């Protein structure tokens, strides 16, 4: 691996995107949760909902602020580090991101002020409306950015101009490109699962530490209910997404599965050490037939192997292979935890099962880690293409960029993000420990 401007730009983009994605993942789900809490309070008049709203909205504000500023960086990185890319896709993806700004960013930003600071200045219904608009904005944002990302995976509705860049032909085909519905559903639900587990973990901690025990039990039950619905759903959506990928990006699936050769009756590789040089797996542990069965729904279905493309057209298999296993492993862990929670609740042992609450705290970040691992799977699995089979990553980088420039920005942004993450965790855990504040105080 040569640390040139291209590689450093890739590291920088990966790092800044991974950092950013944690915050929208938390805020999309939490915003919907907040809208539910405030709506429930307005409908039932039960003060518990209001107290919970005030508790979670403060943590939401913290995550939202970091999400906004870390997102601005990405908008400009397209041009700074990837001028070949932005020149190529500007006509097609620029308007999509434009719609994201017009329909999502402004909506969020316009109403977040009222949501966070306006409770004493507007009535409860208008305040609820502001909360809903923020939640709607976060969801719109996911819609457009996933449309753009999916177009890079399965480009459609465009042609290449005489000057050599992509121009739109059919906007509906651009937006609703083949992988978009699957990716959107998978990501929005990922956000719900991740939020549910973060909320559940923090609630469990409060219950264990006797911080507003009864209020936080309510929060815990709501979060576990959300987890019990969304975590199994995620497995189904992930499977559908995988089948779609098999149709449009079979090489990515081959890398995920660790299949070097095209075979029928393909096994399911549970663990292995994929070797790029030798083009084979070491220490493979696999279950016969199961690979074909899962992906083709028949025991002898043929699966395309990495050997169908030349070595330079393959993604870096170990990264894709392991990132996928981390994602799927954590996914199954979360499904197990969600079902266990419902069972304990059914047996009325949830509050007294200290071991489960402790486990829940440890599993808290699992959704976020799984989300990042999932994105690594799909983005690294697309390589060496940035726009699949149309534009190579090496042609996307800014040609005039020199290594030292990217090194400076990469070091600077890494330091700043590290500090922000540490302060976020410190400030966030202090707010967690304070518990819900007396109702009626400013948010």
């Amino acid at each position, binding site marked *: 691996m040569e640390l040139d401007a291209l590689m450093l730009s890739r590291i920088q983009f990966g790092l800044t995107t991974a950092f950013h994605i944690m915050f929208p993942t938390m805020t999309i789900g939490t915003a919907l949760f907040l809208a539910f809490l405030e709506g429930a309070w307005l409908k039932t008049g039960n003060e518990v909902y209001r107290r919970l709203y005030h508790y979670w909205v403060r943590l939401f504000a913290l995550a939202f602020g970091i999400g906004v500023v870390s997102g601005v960086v990405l908008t400009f990185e397209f041009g700074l580090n990837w*001028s070949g890319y932005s020149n190529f896709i500007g006509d097609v993806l620029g308007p999509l991101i434009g719609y994201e700004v017009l329909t999502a960013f402004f*909506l969020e*930003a316009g109403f977040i002020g009222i949501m966070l600071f306006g409770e004493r*200045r507007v009535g409860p219904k208008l305040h609820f409306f502001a909360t809903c608009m923020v939640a709607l904005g976060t969801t719109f944002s996911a819609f457009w950015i996933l449309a753009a990302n999916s177009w890079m995976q399965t480009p459609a509705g465009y042609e290449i101009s005489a000057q050599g860049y992509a121009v739109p032909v059919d906007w509906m085909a651009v937006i609703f490109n083949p992988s978009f519905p699957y990716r959107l559903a998978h990501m929005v639900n990922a956000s719900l699962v991740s939020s549910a587990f973060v909320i559940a973990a923090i609630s469990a901690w409060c219950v264990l530490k006797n911080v507003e025990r009864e209020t936080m039990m309510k929060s815990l039950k709501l979060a576990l209910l959300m987890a019990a619905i969304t975590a199994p759903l995620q497995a189904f959506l992930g499977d559908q997404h995988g089948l779609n990928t098999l149709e449009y990006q079979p090489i990515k699936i081959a890398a995920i599965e660790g299949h070097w050769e095209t075979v029928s009756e393909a096994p399911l590789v549970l663990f292995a050490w994929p070797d790029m040089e030798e083009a084979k797996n070491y220490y493979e542990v696999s279950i016969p037939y199961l690979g074909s069965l899962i992906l083709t729904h028949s025991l002898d279905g043929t699966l395309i192997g990495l050997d169908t493309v030349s070595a330079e057209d393959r993604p870096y298999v170990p990264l894709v292979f392991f990132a996928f296993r981390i994602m799927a492993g954590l996914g199954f862990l979360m499904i197990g935890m969600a079902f266990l929670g419902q069972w304990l609740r059914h047996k009325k042992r949830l509050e007294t099962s200290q071991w489960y609450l402790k486990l829940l705290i440890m599993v808290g970040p699992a959704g976020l880690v799984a989300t990042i691992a999932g994105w690594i799977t799909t983005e690294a699995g697309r390589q060496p293409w940035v726009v699949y089979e149309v534009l190579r990553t090496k042609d996307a980088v800014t040609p005039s960029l020199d290594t030292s420039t990217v090194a400076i*920005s990469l070091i600077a*942004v890494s330091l700043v993000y590290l500090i922000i993450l540490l302060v976020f965790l410190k400030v966030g855990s202090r707010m967690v420990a304070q518990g819900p504040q007396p109702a009626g105080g400013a948010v």
Partner: protein
Amino acid sequence: MELDLVVIWAGILVIGVIMYVVLDGFDLGVGILFPFQNSRGNRDHMMGSIAPVWDGNETWLVMGGVIILAIFPRAYSMILPAVYLPIFAMLLGFILRGVAFEFRHRSPGAEHIWRKVFAGGSILAAFSQGIVLGHFIGGFNFEQSLFEGGPWSWVHPFNFFTGLALVAGYGLLGGCWLVMKTTGDLRAWSRKMAMCFGALVMIAMAIVSIWTPLVDPEIDRRWFTMPDMLWLMPVPVLAGLAFLGLWVGLYRDRTHQPFLCAVAAFLLGFVGLAISLWPYAVPRVMTIWDAASSPASQQFLLWGALVAIPMILAYTGYTYWVFRGPVSDKDGYGHDG
């Protein structure tokens, strides 16, 4: 005459940039004034006056960037690499001041750190923008649309000067904003700050107006050739009147007049700049028509812009209405125990 989409979009972009400069200008300006304010309570009020709106204000910058990507992609991919380090510094400045909003009031023991981060981030963002602006006016070094200037080509006295000038300009907007939004000793202090920064801005604008034609002979020709000179005269004259209104407003301790006049001065400065650079997307290299994306791209986004921008202006205006009047102890951060 057929409507020229490119010109419409150039107009929307100009409106977006003006919205950005005025709105984020005053809240960056509040950060720029932060180091001069010694009272923590007053700093709370200063931050509280922009807390509900800064996020929306910054969104206009994102919109400007994305319009350039979507409508002028050829320019987007040329300009950004040419100002890589200043843009990156600006982004880091935004990140630092953005997180400082949240962290400052939630870490009472570390206020002395986060107030510096807030000020430093605001100043860094404003100064970097000024450098980008200066470099943009001065022109880039391109060989067949490939940037040839190297990573440090922006290091030039003129660019540093425009950087300082923009910091002073935002400081002025911030001071005038605080005159509107505060009362008592904080308002008196804000008025004093607005006067100091107003003086700096007038000096800076005079120097930039003389220096720019010297840096760029084409700008010299545009402004100082008859009969164009006569047509363009209203711009400097009106700018002079705006400054006069600013000083009278500050001197008589008016509430809204200083801010409105400062905004007018900024607008006229911007109009002057637009006249200097028209019709280039990349000065002296690429016109807006050469930089433009396909008509289908421009049309598609135009529908969205025509529907969404009035709505955005309406609810943004509503937010400002909700938080109208001087900021009080019940607003902003720091009162949630």
